[in-house]
């Protein structure tokens, strides 16, 4: 599997599909966030990725890290809620392990995922069980590492595993009392609601899987 390569075309396809996903799921994220938060998660992501869409063509000649840094900065600027620094941070750190490169190995891809998720954990000061994006992303990245390194799954199978574990992680937020964000103030009223950040994170993992060769 050492000759498995993810090239820039893959990452650009992912970004293009994240733009589409953020429009398609906008109403869904708004509904989730309206139930327990301020209702702006869907609109925020859509505005953020529209800004990415406006500029993506001009960024395509850059290396992978620079493209994702630009994506992150756009989200940081345009996304109004906590998702701005969180997803902004994710994409700004995502390409750091492969600075200057136009293609990456699957080991490097795993490092990129870890780097992105780590900044979300650090900035959000959240752990699994707090009913946030981390409930999706941390188990997903851990599953990705285990599936590829320990269980010998192919990159695509490993990413599928990560996507499925991430979706289960998002499901796990439904019965939880939220420990972060505005939903925290609701106490038990948050029980029975899916965390919107965990849902958008799961949708992003799906996009990363879908385009993987």
């Amino acid at each position: 599997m050492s000759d498995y390569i993810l090239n820039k075309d893959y990452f650009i396809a992912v970004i293009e599909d994240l733009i589409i996903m953020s429009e398609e799921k906008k109403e869904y994220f708004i509904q989730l966030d309206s139930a327990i938060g301020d209702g702006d998660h869907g609109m925020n992501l859509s505005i953020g990725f529209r800004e990415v869409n406006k500029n993506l063509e001009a960024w395509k000649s850059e290396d992978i890290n620079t493209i994702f840094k630009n994506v992150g900065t756009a989200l940081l600027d345009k996304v109004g809620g906590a998702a701005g620094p969180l997803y902004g941070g994710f994409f700004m750190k995502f390409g750091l392990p492969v600075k200057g490169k136009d293609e990456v190995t699957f080991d490097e891809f795993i490092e990129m995922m870890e780097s992105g998720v780590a900044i979300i954990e650090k900035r959000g000061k959240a752990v699994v069980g707090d009913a946030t994006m981390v409930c999706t992303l941390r188990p997903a990245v851990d599953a990705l590492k285990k599936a590829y390194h320990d269980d010998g799954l192919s990159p695509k199978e490993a990413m599928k595993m990560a996507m499925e574990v991430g979706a289960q992680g998002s499901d796990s937020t439904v019965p939880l009392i939220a420990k972060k964000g505005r939903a925290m103030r609701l106490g038990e009223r948050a029980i029975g609601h899916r965390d919107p950040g965990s849902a958008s994170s799961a949708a992003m993992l799906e996009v990363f899987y879908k385009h993987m060769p």
Partner: protein
Amino acid sequence: MTGVIIVSHSEKLAEGLRDIVMEMNDGSVEVIAAGGADGGRIGTNTLKIKAAIESLAKCDHILIFVDLGSAVLCSETAIEMLDDDIQEKVHIVDAPLVEGVVGGVVQATICDDLDQIIETAKEGATLRKVC
């Protein structure tokens, strides 16, 4: 010299609070309203906060007052993005927004002692309005 940044989800709230406190400011404290998300929407904007901090770089200390959740997260992110020498000067004050800003700015017109200014701002949390 002390610099103060007001970070609210509402641009109007941040500006309105700045108006209130400027009545008591003799001009010795720089106060910047950095409220609202991009385009005046409700929310907070990391890059706006970062620009506010940078514009106060000449101040000895810079105090950030915040309203709700992501105001803290965005402020922390903005600080992280700056050089170490500016970072050291910036403090997010754990105080109620209105009482904290008023108390902090007034104290900063009286003295230049960082601990005293922060202490006064924090006292806003226990200030009784109705006796």
